[in-house]
């Protein structure tokens, strides 16, 4: 059974599962770093997504696994060079000022209370940053 994570964003909770088989190194490093707290801000280059920078995970030696350029809605994508964890709610792509089309690891997929959580992510575009906490969801 896949490891699960719980996300709390500005009073809205949801959860998802890690892609441990497809992204083993990324998932293991991410799991070890939990819990992660910070401010979720809207992306400036990548479209319909919010992101946090986890400096403890910024490591260019972490390989891109389960590679995507376009992020599926409800996915959590990780860019090792920035330690960037992105939550996609619509049309989005791994971009920055240097790269109009980069790549990221599809780290996890949301599957519980997805709609409400993605609405909260989308609201950061017009309302600014919101507090977020990502933690392990222990098996019951």
């Amino acid at each position, binding site marked *: 059974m896949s490891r699960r994570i719980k996300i709390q964003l500005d009073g809205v909770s949801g959860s998802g599962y890690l892609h441990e088989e497809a992204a083993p190194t990324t998932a293991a490093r991410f799991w070890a770093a939990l819990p992660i707290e910070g401010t979720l801000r809207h992306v*400036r*280059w*990548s479209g319909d997504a919010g992101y946090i920078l986890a400096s403890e995970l910024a490591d260019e030696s972490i390989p891109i696994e389960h590679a995507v350029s376009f992020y599926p809605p409800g996915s959590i994508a990780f860019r090792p060079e920035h330690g960037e964890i992105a939550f996609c709610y619509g049309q989005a*792509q791994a*971009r920055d*000022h240097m790269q109009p089309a980069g790549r990221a690891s599809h780290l996890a997929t949301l599957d519980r209370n997805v709609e409400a959580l993605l609405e909260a992510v989308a609201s950061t*575009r*017009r309302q*600014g940053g919101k507090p977020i906490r990502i933690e392990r969801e222990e098996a019951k």
Partner: protein
Amino acid sequence: MKEIAIEVDGVVGLAELLESNAPKAAAAFWASLPIATTLTHTQWSGRACGFSLDGGALQKVGLEHPVCSLYPGTLGVHPERGEALLSYGPSEYRSELGPEYLTRVARVTGNREALLAVLSRMHDEGDKRITLRRNSG
């Protein structure tokens, strides 16, 4: 030289209208003033904030001396789309399809650092009101 007063969150900057760079777009933009609307941080174009333009004469003007990259403090417009972008750092006009072109119509020269600092904060603080009017000195 024509100047535009740009006010965001109580901070006023002065921008020089770039008439020689884009005579048609600059004239149409000047004619469209004053503008009072919502300013939103861009999601594709980097360190810039954008607002919608009403139709009118500007919408009929094509691109002039089009560019992709915007230096900080540059106001660019895409007339046909009715979009305007005001940059505060590295930015490039992009859409979901990739890099696009726009026309530079003004450049912030007065109280520049303070105005750009307000724009930069929008990434954390969200939408703000923007007003643009002819500066009478």
